[in-house]
């Protein structure tokens, strides 16, 4: 009996070694485990045995049957895997180097810089406001303490319209509106487009963006202004910025300052951006003139505040190293489509 089993084992192993595919495997299954299979025949042959012999043979044959069955199953899985692999290997390979295109257009560089500033200011508790481009003389001038007959109102600077209004020459035109809307205390920025009647060249545009900001509260001081501008500009330029104030003159502030920053591009050594002076004149600012507060409905005896005007266009040019201001309003997609920053 045991000889038979060993012999059977051996032939089974030989058969298995030859099996290449599922068909071969099925033939083997039938040969050994089928109704007339050799193992089935062995089991049938037990009928002639008795007692312990029969018990022993049963055990061994059933074990053999289980082993053969398992072996066939294992091999089946293996063959299946090999087949799948062959199919996958035969699949077309994708040429990932083919161009795929994208669905990304571009934002205007001013939009990108404006958003950056809006985020910085929002994080410091400033509201973001907007204002018209066509404004009245009162809004643009009187309400920000530019009296009638002031040189700033000259025809050569301001675009006047045939209904008596004008195109706003400065974002300060919105100061009155913002003060009236929020009252004191108030923190707000208002980016916007401004217009001045100027001849176009690489550094002059008649249409440009500014961003006005102001902060009004009890006891706002010059020292606060310096701290605040330095903090904010450090964030804008992503490096520690040193500022300095010089006396300036603007009708809407008193005292007024010209704010310079220590050139962040060359560290003050002198480069093209700072015109080799080490300092960049960046932003006019000052303590809001009591008359402006008054006209905005805020009591100048109780409140003080500072205001500043950042040249958004200039900032964008500095940030992106744009040398010709005319690019910005050119609508030339070959130049503008590179601004894909979200």
């Amino acid at each position, binding site marked *: 009996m045991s000889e038979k089993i060993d012999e059977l084992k051996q032939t089974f192993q030989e058969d298995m070694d030859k099996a290449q595919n599922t068909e071969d495997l099925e033939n083997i299954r039938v040969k050994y485990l089928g109704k007339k299979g050799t193992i089935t025949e062995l089991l049938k042959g037990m009928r002639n045995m008795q007692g312990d012999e029969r018990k022993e043979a049963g055990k061994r044959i059933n074990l053999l049957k289980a082993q053969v069955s398992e072996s066939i199953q294992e091999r089946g899985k293996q063959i299946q895997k090999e087949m799948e692999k062959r199919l996958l290997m035969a699949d077309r390979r994708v040429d990932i180097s083919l161009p795929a295109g994208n669905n990304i257009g571009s934002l205007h560089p001013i939009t990108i810089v404006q958003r950056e500033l809006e985020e910085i200011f929002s994080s410091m508790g400033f509201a973001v406001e907007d204002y018209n481009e066509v404004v009245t003389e009162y809004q643009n001038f009187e309400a920000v303490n530019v009296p009638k007959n002031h040189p700033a109102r000259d025809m050569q600077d301001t675009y006047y319209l045939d209904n008596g209004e004008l195109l706003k020459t400065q974002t300060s035109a919105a100061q009155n509106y913002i003060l009236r809307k929020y009252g004191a205390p108030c923190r707000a920025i208002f980016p916007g487009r401004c217009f001045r009647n100027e001849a176009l060249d690489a550094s002059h545009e008649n249409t440009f963006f500014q961003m006005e900001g102001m*902060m009004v509260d009890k006891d706002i001081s010059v020292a606060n202004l310096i701290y605040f501008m330095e903090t904010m500009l450090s964030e804008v330029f992503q490096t520690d910025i040193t500022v300095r104030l010089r006396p*300036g003159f603007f009708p809407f502030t008193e005292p007024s300052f010209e704010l310079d920053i220590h050139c962040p591009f060359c560290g003050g050594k002198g480069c093209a951006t700072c015109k080799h002076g080490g300092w960049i004149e960046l932003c006019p600012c000052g303590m809001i003139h009591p008359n402006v507060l008054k006209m905005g409905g805020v009591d100048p005896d109780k409140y003080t505040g500072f205001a500043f005007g950042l040249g958004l266009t200039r900032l964008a040019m500095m940030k992106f190293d744009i040398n010709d201001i005319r690019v910005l309003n050119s609508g030339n997609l070959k130049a503008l489509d590179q601004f894909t920053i979200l």
Partner: protein
Amino acid sequence: MFLSMNWIGDFVDLTGVDMDDLMHKFTMGTAEVEGYQWVGKDVQDVVVGKIISCEKHPDSRKLHLLKVDVGDKVLDIVCGAPNARVGIKVPVALPGGKAGGMDIEPRMLAGCISNGMCCSQKELGVSDDHSGLWELPEDLPLGKDLKEIYEIDDFIFEVDNKSLTNRPDLWGHYGIAREVAALTGRTLKPYQTHSLDAYESLPEVPISVEDDSCYRYSAMAISNITVPKSPENMQIRLYRCGMRGINLLTDLTNYLMLELGQPMHAYDYKRVSQIEVKKFDQPFQFTTLDDKVRTVGTDTLMICSQGKPVCVAGIMGGQESEIVDDTDSFLLECANFDSMSVRKSTQALGLRTDAALRYEKTLDPEMTRTAVARYLKLLLEIDPDVKVISRFSDCYKKHYPHRVITIDKDYVDRYTGIDISEDRITKTLTDLGFGVTRRGKDFIVDVPSYRATKDVTIPADLIEEISRIYGYDNFAKKTTRAAIHPITMTPEHRLHRGVKNLLAFSYGSHEVHTYIWNDGKTLGQLGLSNKGILHLTNAVSPDIDTIREEMVPSLICVAAKNKTYAQEFSVFEIGSVVTGLDKDNLAIEEKHLGVVLVGQKGSEEKLVMRAKSICESIAKMLRGISFYYTNDESGDVKEWEHPYNAFTVMAADEDPITPDLNVGRIAIVHPSVSAKINKKLALVGIELNMDAIWPLTRIMPKFQEPSRFPSITADITYQVDSSVRYSEFMRVIAQHPSQLLKDTELMGIYEDPDVKGKKAVTIRYTFGADDRTLTSEEVTDAIEMYRGVMRELGAMVEG
């Protein structure tokens, strides 16, 4: 404005002051210094010499061979100056010295040795005169270094005029000296004048001022003028500050203007001996002393004498009454005019003189007497024989109020945020010429007249004086102690941001910026008119004088410029347009989104669908509103629009009561316009009124639990006439509502080329219920209903 440190040194002792440091302080504390330089460094070892022999060069027509006595020796010098002659004293640059931009060494000139150089004024940097040698006065000692006689050395700095706009007191050296004294802590010397009291008994110059824009007119008549030219050092100072010497009387007026900031004028007394200040009823021709004939309008103030105009007030004198060679007596004018009046006349005449520049700044009328007294002092020093023949005659019409401002230390602390001591406050203000009296905690500040015309009027103005001299560099930086307030983005802002992101990052569109006025030239080339409600009154060209009413034409112009950019692209902008005027005649300004999509001819439908998809996406972002699109072919079609493919975008919210809003347009751009850009192109425009849309923004609607039961879909294909629009199907479905119908979707439209005039429209219906699984009967009934209802559209149901 150029300033001479020698001149400033007349009024404040600057010994030991570092000039770089002073310039920095001036920029930081007063006004921006645009540049500075030491002059005279390129002139060395130039001495007084006398030509004792002058022979013609044997081989040259121009050159002379000179023997020049320089005191301790006689030098052979080859010289080309036409005025070289025996007997004159001239500057001689010695070998080893410097002049005319050269290092002077003995050298051969046209075959002869030259041991030095005789110099012109230009070569010594004291004037532009290069016509010949500088002929020095006879009494100068031979061999004396010229720098010991003349102000060849100086330190010149330039201050940006614009930064002095609000400081009428800084338009002369004396005012600058006051600042320098305050910035360096030195003492300002008193301004030396000649007392006018002794002349009170002399006759008055008749002055009549007939116009309010003359605030003050002072005059004095002086005779017996014998010195024609002003001293060299005076001329050098004038030259270094950008003017030049003419004659003594005129030079002195200019000198006073540069010194005190007070313009003056000298008239030949033979022609002007009495004064009327007035405007004329009629324009007339007037010859100014630059020999130009100018038309003077009725708004321009004139100085007249016996009815005859002699000077444009505050701007320029007339040619007829100017000081000439034989002038031996003159009338000195020292006046003050309204700044606006001078500025307007300047603009009308197109003539902005140094005098006008100063009058525009609102000068202190108190200065006129000081200026006349100073003039007289300087004149008497130069020409002691002159005779004053009138008293100081004065017509003083407008006085500025005398200003006294009270502040206290708390106010200064609050405004500056730092602690500036009381002594420092007092010293700063005093140094700047303010009178300071203490009363308890208060500083009672008396504003000097030269600061009171407009510059210093309120307490905040004093803060500036105190802080700038203290130095902004010395300020501590301090954060604020303000309460925290939440900040949210305005809905308008949020919408703009969302729409820009959508277009740029979902639709691949490019944001551009265009001008608020139409691009008239490009519009014209495209056959579109330059339309708009508002116009600029002072545009440089009529092509850019019309404020736009809509965005799309601006963007069509951008598309035209980019026609070769890509096969398919789009541009967009959110910008301002003016759509009308309100009852007060004020502009109605709206923010509009404009998009122009560009593709190849034949892709119009695809482009319109893309445009619609953009609008649908915007509506979806807003939540709770929906857009629908109408085309009323008989309605107003814009010039740029295809007359039959222009659609109005209507916005409907969930509230049935509020009327639906017209928020914009989608249209194919008129083929004749796109053909002018390129025959192969098709364009589609979107114009959306963002101001109308953002108020529709809804708060987030309540969450809806999705049904847990399966839904069933059924596709039904209808065959209809090609002219039947999809909206008709939607209308029929809406008229036959079913509780079970959850959604419909267009699966496709097929037009069989063999079946003319017909199309097959396949719609997928989705049925379901929130509370149960539908039975097959329910579904069958519903499907049957939607198969049947389309008969009213003449539909045949396939399958």
